[in-house]
Every structure is written in C-alpha cells, then in structure tokens.
C-alpha cells in the first residue's frame, strides 16, 4: 500500500519528501559544493564543465544553467540547497523566491510589503487564487 501524500493537491508547492530528495540527491549535493569559495570560482569559470563532474541528469543540468528554480525543484531540488546557486550569483533569498512566481523583483517585494500572498484560493488545486497553475506566470513583466 502506498504512503499517503495529502500535500499533492496544494497549488504552486512541491514538498521535498523522501522521493524528491532521492531524485535530487546529486543536484542538491552539487549546490552544497558551492559553499566553498574555490568551487564557486570553478563553477563560474565554466558552468557546464563543473556540472559534468556531478552524476546529475541532463535535465537537472539544463535547469541549473537556465537558473529556472521551479524546474530545478521539479527534478528534486530543494530551495535551501538551490539558494547556494543564488548566493554564487549574488542574489538575495527574496530575489530567488520571487523568481519562481514570474513577478518582477519589484512586484514581488511590493506584494510582501503589502502583507504577502493571501491563502485565499491558494489552499487547494482547482480554486482560483493567484498561485494556481492556470494563473501562471504572475506579474506584468
């Protein structure tokens, strides 16, 4: 009998469970390697060559090269690990979080100052909140 995963019906959300963690192991460990300054330098000098040192899938490598964090997460990435790529690029956590919504940095920051994203319509897939799949990407940019 399969494990109950009641969190699969939340829009715009991927829970980093043991299955995602298994899929993303090498992707996340690659991210972890960017904690070291010399690795950040090597990665920046030749991203593709550095990625090829890791037993990641081609799709994971493409997702990293594209800096598409939603794509990285679909292939098993976790935001706390992916944040190391952002740090290497000189991005703040807010810039990274905002990048996954489609909003511009300014639009996302403004949403947070106004009290953040409402949970209304964003609790279950099939409602009509701004995080629902049929309303992506968000923002005007």
């Amino acid at each position, binding site marked *: 009998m399969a494990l109950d995963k009641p*969190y699969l019906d939340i829009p715009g959300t*991927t829970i980093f*469970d043991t299955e995602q963690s298994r899929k993303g192991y090498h992707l996340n460990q690659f991210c972890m390697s*960017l904690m070291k300054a010399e690795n950040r330098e090597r990665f920046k000098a030749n991203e593709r060559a550095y990625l090829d040192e890791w037993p990641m899938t081609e799709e994971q490598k493409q997702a990293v090269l594209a800096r598409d964090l939603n794509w990285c997460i679909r292939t098993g990435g976790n935001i706390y690990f992916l944040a*190391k790529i952002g740090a290497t690029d000189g991005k703040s956590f807010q810039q990274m*979080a905002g990048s996954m919504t489609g909003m511009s940095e300014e639009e996302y920051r403004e949403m947070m100052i106004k*009290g953040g994203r*409402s949970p209304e319509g964003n609790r*279950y897939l099939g409602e009509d909140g701004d995080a629902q799949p049929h309303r*992506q990407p968000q923002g005007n940019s």
Partner: protein
Amino acid sequence: MAYISASVYTSHVPAIGAALDQGKAEEPYWQPLFAGYKFSKQWMQEAKPDVIILVYNDHATAFSLQMIPTFAIGTAAEFQPADEGWGPRPVPIVQGHPELASHIAQSLILQDFDLTIVNEMDVDHGLTVPLSLMCGQPKTWPCPVIPFAVNVVQYPVPRGQRCFQLGQAIRRALDEYDEDLNVQIWGTGGMTHQLQGPRAGLINRQWDSQFLDKLINDPEAAAVIPHIEYVREAGSEGIELVMWLIARGAMSDVAGEAKPKVRHRFYHVPASNTAVGHLILENSR
C-alpha cells in the same frame, strides 16, 4: 537542579541578520521589526540565564543530504558561525555547555528520544539570528548555548506531538542535573512563509495569530496540528513552527504546575519573505 525559567519564541529570517550586520536596522523597512525586540533585549539583561537551549534548524549548512538527523544536540565547547555562501556573519563564537548537553543527550536517549550527538558543527542563521534579536550586537554572547537542531528541511519533519513530548523530556532531564542552573529554552523559525514555487510569499496572518493564542493557552491543541495544516495554511516552510512546540513542552504548566506569564508578544509582516512572530513566556517560580 537545573530549571527552565522561561521560553522564548522567534522567527530566524536570514535577512534580519544581514540587516543588522550591514547597519540597516534603522531603515524604514526594518525599524518596525527591531522595535518589536526592544523590550526583549532589556528583558534578557534582567533574566540573566546561565544557559540557553536553542532549538533551531540547520539550512543545508552543517548537514547536507549526506546525513539527515531528525534531532541533533551540539555537545561541543564552541560552535563557529557558518559561511552560508555570503561569508560568515560577524557575530561572536557560540560557546557551548558540553556538561549539560551531554547530560541531556544521555537522559533523552534513555527516555526514548534517539538523538544524534554532534561534537563538531558550524551554526547558521537559524541559531545566530535569534541570538542577535534577543541580545543585540555584543562582543560575546551573554551565556553558553546548547544548539538543538531539528530537521525541518526534508519532509517528513518530526510531528508536532513528538516535539511537544520532547520538550517535556528535556524538562525532566534538567530536573536530574545536579548543578543549579537557570536555563532558557528557545524555539525558533516560522511563522507563515513559503520560499518556493508559484505560491512563494504566502502569509497567513489569521492563522499565525490563532497559533500564537493556542501556543500560549492550549499547547496540547497546538501540538496536535497535523503537518498538512502547516503546509496548506502556513506555507511549506511555515512547518518550522513544530520547533516552537519543543520549547513550549518544556514549560512547567505542561507538567501540571502554574500557567506561564506572557511577558511579550509581537508580530510583524514582512521580513523578506516571512511573517515574524515572537513570544516570551516566563515560568512562575
């Protein structure tokens, strides 16, 4: 005997540490947040704890996916602030309390909480931001700190009920300690926030307020909140709030004594992507 004099609850947003370290605390964006901790800093100076048990989570800093301990206690003499990719925070080295930490480890394992014991570890913003919020920017932290790390990165995180029971077990462990020590326990992380996906930026003010009420007045009810409610209502990273239940479980009323006194309550949106919540509860003694 060592005893819990008070519990402190606070968010540990990394941007708060960066704002302090870069001298931005008086900027209009940050000023209302730090104003909410003014009382707390003064209270800390009067409370003078001998040791702080600081419940926090590591954010892919000391623990990668190579090993994922659910509950880990730091038993070292000192812990260096970690380089999380932006360079280490310019804050004091964290002095540990190896004697009390190893006592707690032994007691908890015999109470069926199978802890991971960590003798070498750097500590990230999860631990140092709460210290900065409560103590400001001193040359040394006011007392030794026992880091108590909880996995809230990989799902499933420990259940709220288990965390609440763990707090109760920590209290019993302190009862068995010979030296007379004034101990505070801090629960950190939260409140509502989501850092990933198209739903990033979720804030649920009403849920947060209800959680704070429950934590104060009916912690047993807060302890049975299921994971799915945290994720759906408080955001995928809001589930960090289970760590607050460890601190709450260690308070005297849970063991049948008097209700704690609420010394301070504060709530503010936003700090970067997150709703910031803060409570100070004091045991009567």
